[in-house]
């Protein structure tokens, strides 16, 4: 096995363990910290593939901004341990089969059609931020402008929601 494959398996194991830990932890703050582990491992995988800008954005926005927001809300609401309820029989009986079926379907599709895909470019051939920004501000400039409206709507929505009625 070459070095990139070893690094891939280490990072993939960290990501999967973090995701399993997210499920097994009872306290929401522990789940949030597990999710941060998954995100940092994914950022490492992006770097391995040569997507440096996406890796930086992953850490700054996901690992930084969004998860800090989550942790703030958990602390603000003083969220304690999850209580166990048995209201939903559907989850207990159909949950695992459903997830296994979806994962199996995706994996089967990959096996049947993914063989023709070429391997990613060798490391060192990074997607330069210049290429990415040229694409973003030429070809995808309308979606880019629309996202600013989306964020504006989100800001207004949160202000309306968070306001106490008087």
């Amino acid at each position, binding site marked *: 096995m070459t070095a990139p494959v070893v690094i891939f398996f280490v990072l993939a194991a960290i990501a999967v363990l973090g995701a399993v830990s997210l499920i097994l932890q009872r306290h929401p703050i522990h789940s949030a910290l597990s999710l941060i582990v998954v995100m940092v491992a994914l950022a490492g995988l992006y770097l391995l593939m040569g997507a440096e800008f996406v890796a930086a954005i992953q850490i700054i926005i996901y690992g930084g901004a969004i998860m800090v927001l989550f942790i703030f809300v958990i602390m603000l609401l003083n969220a304690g341990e999850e209580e166990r309820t048995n209201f939903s029989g559907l989850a207990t009986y159909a*949950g695992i089969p459903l997830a296994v079926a979806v994962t199996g379907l995706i994996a089967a599709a990959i096996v049947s059609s993914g063989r023709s895909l070429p391997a990613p470019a060798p490391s060192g051939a990074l997607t330069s931020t210049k290429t990415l920004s040229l694409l973003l501000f030429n070809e995808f400039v309308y979606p880019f402008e629309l*996202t600013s409206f989306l964020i504006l709507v989100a800001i207004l929505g949160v202000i309306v929601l968070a306001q106490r009625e008087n």
Partner: protein
Amino acid sequence: MVPTNYYLFLSAILFGLGIVAFVFKRNVITLFMAIELMLNAVNLAFVAFSQSLGKPDGEVFVLFVIIVAAAEAAVGLGIIILTARNRHSLNVERVDLLKL
């Protein structure tokens, strides 16, 4: 080099774990984290395809997914704060006003 299939398999596994978390967890904040996990799995597949095909379009899409996820997290957590204030519980099973 690492074959693209490996990344796609990891993406499928993370998506499946996200579904498991979404179905089994009872805390509404953890459900939101499960959604974020699934979005991350999709992002991984996007970047893998983009690198494998040599087109940076996929990475631009990842940026859009991250922007939408940020907006969704902000609005969703605002809604969570409101429900927690009104129902005095974070358990999704106790938020059942729309149930007959």
